[in-house]
């Protein structure tokens, strides 16, 4: 292959990367512009920078404060992720290190629940929540997000725990190590990076979720994506504020996603691709 062609393809890869990233870069730049500079045609690339968009978003202009929504999203995502780990770790153990009979069938049952569209269960869950007085309650979302992410987590953890060699576990057992010691000293060091990636992916999915949050929460328990839906209709000059809001609310996901980059495919493909 000629050097020109190789360089050309490298250049093409760079160009597509930049084109895909451009909307995000533009969003970031616009968030630092004043509202007047943000809404010009042709676009003002070199306008002076200001933090006004961020100040507006955090409620200095008299709008609703995003903090309650950010706190709600954090609670729903972090607590549901912890619940997922608590339920998925023992389950993955019983599907890999000490497998039950027909463990593949069980694994595929978990996967099949992920293929049931969430919207199909929405109405009964709404009716249940209304009758139980659980509407606009963040803990209901914690339960639902746990069920949403549990199958993914079980699949991922199963594949991570299966990487722990059985021979090493047997050797530790022969040496008289008990189960807690084996888990802490043998299994954890090998499986920990995978478990961390699983947690980050569950966090992302919970943080992003809109449909359930939109239907089941109101003013008290609204999450960050629901807060963002307040920007759906135009409100005069508000581009800088929208960009600041979108960026701030996406930051945790961007951070978690880049941290889990190497295991992202495995999580998204439900463990089918390594």
């Amino acid at each position: 292959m000629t050097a020109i062609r190789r360089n050309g393809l490298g250049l093409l890869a760079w160009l597509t990367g930049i084109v895909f990233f451009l909307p995000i870069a533009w969003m970031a730049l616009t968030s630092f512009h004043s509202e007047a500079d943000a809404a010009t045609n042709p676009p003002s690339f070199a306008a002076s920078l200001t933090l006004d968009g961020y100040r507006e978003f955090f409620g200095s202009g008299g709008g609703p404060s995003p903090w309650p929504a950010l706190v709600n999203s954090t609670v729903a995502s972090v607590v549901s992720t912890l619940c997922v780990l608590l339920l998925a770790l023992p389950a993955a153990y019983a599907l890999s290190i000490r497998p039950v009979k027909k463990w593949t069938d069980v694994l595929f049952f978990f996967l099949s629940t992920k293929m049931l569209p969430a919207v199909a269960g929405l109405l009964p869950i709404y009716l249940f929540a209304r009758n139980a007085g659980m509407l606009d309650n963040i803990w209901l979302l914690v339960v639902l997000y746990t069920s949403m992410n549990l199958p993914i987590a079980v699949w991922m953890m199963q594949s991570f725990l299966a990487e722990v060699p059985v021979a090493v576990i047997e050797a530790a057992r022969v040496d008289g190590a008990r189960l807690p010691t084996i888990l802490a000293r043998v299994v954890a060091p090998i499986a920990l990076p995978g478990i961390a990636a699983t947690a980050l992916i569950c966090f992302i999915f919970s943080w992003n979720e809109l449909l359930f949050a939109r239907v089941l929460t109101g003013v008290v328990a609204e999450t960050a994506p629901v807060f963002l839906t307040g920007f759906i209709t135009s409100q005069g000059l508000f581009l800088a504020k929208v960009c600041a809001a979108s960026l701030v609310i996406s930051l945790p996901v961007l951070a978690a996603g880049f941290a889990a980059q190497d295991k992202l495919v495995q999580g998204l493909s439900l463990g089918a691709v390594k």
Partner: protein
Amino acid sequence: MTATTTAPYAAAPARTSKQPSARLRAWATRAPLLPALVFMIAVTQLPFVATLVISFFDWNALYPKARHFTGLDNYHQVLTDAGLRHSVWTTVLLTVGVVLASLVLGLALALLLDRRFRGRGLVRTLLIAPFLVVPVAAALLWKHVLYNPEYGLLNGLLHYVGGPQPDWISHTPLLAVEASLVWQWTPFMMLILLAGLQSRDQQQIEAARVDGASDWQIFRHLTLPHLRRYLELGALLGSIYIVQNFDAVFTITSGGLGTANLPYTVYQSFYQAHENGLASAAGVLVVIGSIVIATFALRVVSSLFREEVSRA
């Protein structure tokens, strides 16, 4: 298969010694699994059964006393109502369009990123970023910052070349929604296909090259057959996620201009029109559609999975 091979193994000691302890041990093995299993059945399967039951009732939440059993009437209504039929069609168009476009783009990007060049890691990171924007935020970004006819970036860039200044969302509403989803889902496809490319047998490719095979022949006869299952997996998982898409439709067009897909219609018919029975019937139809896709998806995942297990 696993049952026949493991059954005599497990039964042999049980018959000779004490049976209760073997049963106890089996339950001890199963115990760690049970909380997760019971939780999943309670939270995901029971509501669906309830949806199925409700779908056979004529039930408007505003007139709860008039609730009565109607058999398949709701399904008849969903399938004959022009608006609802349109939303079935929209769902198909949206899903197929987004999945195909992002799969083709994702394949092209995966092929570009599979070769070495300076800054490959950085380009990969740039390309993943769109997938890591909160879906509502991404939809807002497209709606207000890119598509806005007066000051959006698209028309701003067109302005430089003296191009037209279209109102993107009004003129091509479904395409506008699709473009934003393709932007978000192309990285997903790229990641899966890149993993597929990197699991190719390099020796086989070298051997083919030594035998004088051209790049195209290697791609056509070695790479593509190897990628087939990764393409299937990407298409099926993408379909499962995009069939359920609510965020983009809700944010960019609010279901207007003929872009309401089934999830949006289900949401609207019970949240705004309070038609519980109809919403449930539409929900059951989404499930039937998903089951068709899911059956294929499960088959692909299980074939990849068996390969992994047998390799280990």
